[in-house]
């Protein structure tokens, strides 16, 4: 049995029990004493009454003898004869009553002797009276009979007094005890009353507090229940065998089931559409194991099936609950209606498809006419060059150059648009190898230039290799391009760790590349990364203005930032960061 009582209450009960036991012992003792006293009294009464009887018989014997002696009539002898018959029976009774009291018993024996002596004397008197009155009178007047009677009377009185004294003594002790018992009883009864009163007050007080706490708890429980049931999202829990153990009203309303229909009767998979159910069950064992290891699972997309058979898309987030032994006990999940988002996703998909169709068409249809423009201009030059003057040749050249440039613009724009949609494949990228590789490729094209390129050890990073290749290619080729008019090109590439702004404790890698080229005016820095934005004229440096826009797009997709510092004619420095979470 588990005891829920507080120590104080327990102590109270304990003390009460002890007091009751003490009271019990006292009562028993006192009762015992009373019984003893009563026995004593009864004994004394019987001894007194028995000795009285013996006294009376002795008197009868004396009376019989006297009557006969005076009258000589034998009828007077009747009391003597009657008493003599029963005298020894009564002496036996008295003897047995005093058998436990040796002093009194000795007196009874003495009494027996006296009575025998008196009886012998009486018989002698009766005998002499039969011979003649004078003989009997002479014997009586000697006083022997009177002395015997006096001794008997005195001894009987002594026995009786002794018996009374013993009773009185016992009675006195007994009433003292009784009084003590009464006082103690009253004292203990008061003690019990006080303790029980205190216990009552204390328990009552506790119950009052508990009651108030219960009311408060119920209020909180009601509020929690309301929050659970009427939350704007679905909640449900399942046990280790995936049966529903709890579900909130919101989700029930969405599904069209009642609580009774769902709890303990439906499994999680019964909430799913056929398609979702098949997918869920197909990899259930594996997924469930993973879930139990990880302890949670986020943003799972399912399709729920209502009772009426209609479907709606949902997002489910779950957290596992384990017992103290680390065994999986249950799972709690939230469900949000994904209908609107799904609609949005479908719309985005449509838009993306439209965009794909558009870029495909641009890619194909726009380039074909451009090719015709350059192609036929070339034919014009080849077949009719001999009849054209220099101005004619110059115009043909302009046509071809512009068509070519437009081809480049179309290509760059397509690259840019594709980069936004391309799927990212994050791997560990060895930046040292990547940069060396690109440098080799790009510097091979720069014949006769004095290049001083310093590459510091670069931190490896997580990211999409082909995209990061594009970033470094664009940045390095820019550095080479804008420093091409310097006598000696100075390029430095490096990296370092730094704290991520706005996110405490997170580190990110910051890469940089600087050159001593044409630089730029810092007031136009924000324009650097816009599509088709250029800070230099075509005849200064070639380009379409897509390269840095592409860099920015890639870095943003990696969650990083990119920025630049520059000074006209002194060079530019580009930075970009890659978060490493």
């Amino acid at each position, binding site marked *: 049995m588990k005891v829920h009582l507080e120590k104080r209450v327990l102590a109270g009960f304990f003390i009460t029990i002890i007091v009751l036991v003490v009271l019990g012992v006292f009562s028993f003792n006192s009762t015992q004493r009373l019984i003893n006293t009563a026995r004593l009294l009864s004994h004394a009464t019987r001894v007194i009454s028995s000795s009285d009887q013996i006294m009376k018989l002795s008197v009868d014997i004396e009376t019989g003898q006297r009557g006969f002696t005076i009258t000589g009539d034998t009828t007077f002898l009747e009391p003597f004869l009657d008493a003599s018959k029963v005298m020894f029976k009564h002496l036996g009774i008295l003897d047995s009553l005093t058998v436990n009291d040796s002093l009194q018993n000795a007196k009874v024996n003495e009494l027996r002797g006296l009575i025998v002596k008196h009886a012998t004397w009486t018989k002698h008197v009766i005998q002499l009276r039969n011979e003649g009155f004078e003989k009997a009178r002479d014997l009586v007047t000697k006083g022997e009979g009177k002395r015997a009677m006096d001794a008997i009377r005195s001894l009987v009185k002594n026995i009786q007094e002794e018996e009374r004294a013993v009773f009185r003594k016992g009675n006195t002790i007994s009433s003292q005890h009784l009084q003590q018992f009464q006082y103690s009883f009253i004292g203990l009864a008061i003690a019990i009353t006080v303790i029980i009163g205190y216990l009552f007050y204390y328990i009552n007080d506790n119950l009052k507090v508990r009651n108030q706490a219960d009311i408060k708890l119920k209020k909180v429980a009601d509020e929690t229940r309301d929050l659970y049931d009427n939350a704007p999202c679905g909640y449900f829990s399942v046990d280790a065998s995936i049966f529903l153990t709890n579900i909130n009203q919101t989700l029930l309303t969405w599904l069209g089931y009642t609580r009774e229909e769902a709890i303990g009767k439906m499994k999680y998979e019964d909430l799913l559409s056929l398609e979702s159910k098949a997918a869920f069950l197909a990899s259930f064992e594996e997924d469930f194991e993973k879930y139990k290891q990880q302890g949670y699972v986020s943003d799972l997309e399912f399709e729920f099936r209502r009772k009426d058979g209609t479907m709606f898309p949902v997002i489910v987030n779950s957290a596992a609950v384990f017992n103290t032994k680390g065994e999986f006990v249950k799972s709690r999940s939230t469900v949000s209606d994904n209908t609107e988002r799904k609609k949005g996703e479908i719309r985005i998909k449509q838009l993306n498809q439209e965009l794909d169709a558009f870029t495909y068409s641009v*890619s*194909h249809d726009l*380039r*074909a006419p451009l*090719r015709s423009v350059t192609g036929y201009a070339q034919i014009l030059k080849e077949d009719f060059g001999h009849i054209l003057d220099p101005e004619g040749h110059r115009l043909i050249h302009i046509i071809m150059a512009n*068509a070519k440039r437009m081809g480049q613009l179309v*290509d760059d724009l397509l690259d840019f648009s594709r980069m936004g949609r391309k799927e990212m494949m994050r791997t560990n990228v060895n930046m040292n190898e990547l940069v060396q590789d690109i440098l080799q490729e790009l510097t091979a094209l720069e014949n006769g230039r004095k290049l001083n390129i310093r590459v510091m050890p670069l931190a490896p990073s997580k990211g999409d290799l082909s995209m990061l290749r594009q970033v470094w290619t664009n940045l390095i080729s820019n550095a080479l391009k804008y420093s091409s008019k310097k006598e000696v090109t100075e390029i430095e590439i490096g990296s370092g760790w730094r704290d991520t702004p706005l996110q405490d404790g997170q580190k990110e890698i910051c890469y940089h590349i600087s050159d001593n080229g044409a630089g730029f005016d810092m007031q136009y820095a924000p324009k650097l990364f816009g599509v088709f934005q250029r800070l230099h004229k075509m005849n200064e440096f070639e380009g379409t203005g897509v390269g840095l826009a592409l860099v920015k797009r890639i870095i943003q997709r990696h969650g990083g930032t990119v920025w630049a510092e520059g000074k006209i004619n002194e060079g530019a420095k580009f930075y970009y960061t890659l978060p490493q979470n």
Partner: protein
Amino acid sequence: MNNAVEILLVEDNPDDANLAIRALKKSNLANHLLHLEDGEEALAYIFDDKNVMPRLILLDLKMPKIDGIEVLRRLKSDDKKKVIPVVMLTSSKEESDIVETYKLGVNAYIVKPVDFNQFVKAVTELGLFWLVLNQPPVER
């Protein structure tokens, strides 16, 4: 050398086709060239006669009626005709197209450069490669 067609050019845009032909002519590769204007015509020509075995097919991707991918699929699923080298010659650089045509068994995929000189260079090189350098599987 007989008069059998050596290069079959399937291209719906006549201007593009003329440029390609001109480029091939420059390298003297266009003597036995047949130009067809869409996929339907191409399939009809190839499958009408089982002996028609051009040494090279230059195939545009985007064409009316039957497109280049479909022509390629039909060619490469025919036991006899699948040995004919097919080069996609197209304006589009869509990755999905490149992947799909290679899966179907295309022999090369050339994106036509906008610059005519580069175009001439590309066409000449591929003509030389497939007609002169490459060893066809069946001795003719």
